[in-house]
């Protein structure tokens, strides 16, 4: 009920007010939730991207603010973007080869990203080019989870909770020429492979590599960064294709290392837009 009310309030608030309010709440959250703030600070220090403690704290605070505004943007993005106008509002930095794949009917694509920029808006924008299935993390409250899933699902955007991950369904998505979008910087527990992320091993999901080798669907690393109020730049790499050698572990590692390198480079460019407060290294 509370979530429903909160969503209704955000819906009617002007964007600038909602963003300002979100930043204010983020500052309070950052002050009060010492544990979560410390996770962000520890992660930033571990990554080695900040020059000193002041910069570390600034990046941590800005990251909390970024995430708060991301929620507002995700709630309101439907009112700002549609399949007719989005190209006028979003700066595209996508190589021609990748754009051709996105426009090619029947071409499945693995779009890999991280908790960087606004991944929810990215999936929405991408769905104007090609149908997208995005794998999401569940919310703790099942009622809230259903409400959010229902609200965010769109005509050409399907959301699949991580707990319902199904290899067969993913294969079908790629075979049908759609985009399978994954955030590959989630802690993989016992289902992953330890791959360096900013020089420290992090459990990384391997499904993207397997799907690539099995289906031959190219991998693109992409993300959508905020450049202003409800203003974004969509960046993507050229399509990546890896040849299987028969050594599953080595092949998987090659893919994941490459993707982690792309993500690291993107984070170095936009450190304030990365979700540092999630436990990437456990």
């Amino acid at each position, binding site marked *: 009920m509370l979530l429903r009310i909160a969503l209704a309030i955000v819906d009617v608030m002007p964007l600038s007010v909602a963003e300002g309010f979100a930043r204010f709440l983020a500052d309070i959250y950052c002050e009060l939730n010492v544990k979560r703030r410390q996770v962000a600070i520890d992660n930033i220090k571990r990554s080695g991207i900040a020059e000193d403690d002041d910069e570390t704290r600034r990046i941590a605070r800005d990251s909390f603010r970024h995430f708060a505004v991301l929620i507002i943007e995700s709630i309101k993005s439907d009112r700002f973007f549609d399949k007719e106008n989005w190209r006028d509002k979003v700066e595209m930095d996508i190589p021609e080869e990748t754009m051709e794949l996105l426009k090619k009917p029947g071409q499945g694509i693995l779009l890999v990203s991280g908790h960087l920029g606004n991944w929810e808006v990215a999936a929405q924008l991408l769905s104007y080019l090609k149908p997208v299935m995005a794998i999401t993390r569940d919310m703790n409250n099942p009622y809230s989870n259903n409400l959010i899933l229902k609200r965010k699902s769109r005509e050409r955007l399907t959301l699949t909770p991580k707990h319902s*991950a*199904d*290899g*067969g369904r993913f*294969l*079908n998505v790629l*075979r049908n020429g759609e985009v399978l979008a994954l955030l590959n910087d989630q802690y993989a527990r016992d*289902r992953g492979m330890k791959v360096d992320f900013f020089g420290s091993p992090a459990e990384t999901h*391997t*499904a993207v590599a*397997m*799907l690539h*080798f*099995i*289906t031959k669907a190219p991998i693109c690393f992409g993300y959508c960064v905020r450049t202003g109020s409800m203003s974004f730049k969509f960046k993507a790499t050229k399509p990546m294709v890896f040849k*299987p050698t*028969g050594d*599953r572990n080595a*092949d998987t590692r090659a893919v994941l290392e490459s993707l982690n390198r792309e993500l690291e480079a993107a984070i170095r460019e936009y450190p304030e837009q990365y979700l540092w407060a999630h436990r990437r290294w456990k």
Partner: protein
Amino acid sequence: MNKEEIIEKLKEAMKGSSEVQVDWDSVSEESTIESLGFDSLSILDLIYDVQQLFDVEFEAEAMVGVSTVGSLVDFLQGKLQS
């Protein structure tokens, strides 16, 4: 390649990707893929291994629906003969 040869090769592939303890000598055509430690995600590892080991390409989603070792053997035999 006959059925027995496929089963032996398949066991080899499964040993490499299963993450549970399995008595591989007792694996028969009736054994379910699930009982050998494969779920809807780890089946992807097995598909990769099967594609590499048997050097066959196939629409992998067809293999996801296969539930027993016997039906997987039949599936592969069909692909190898085609």
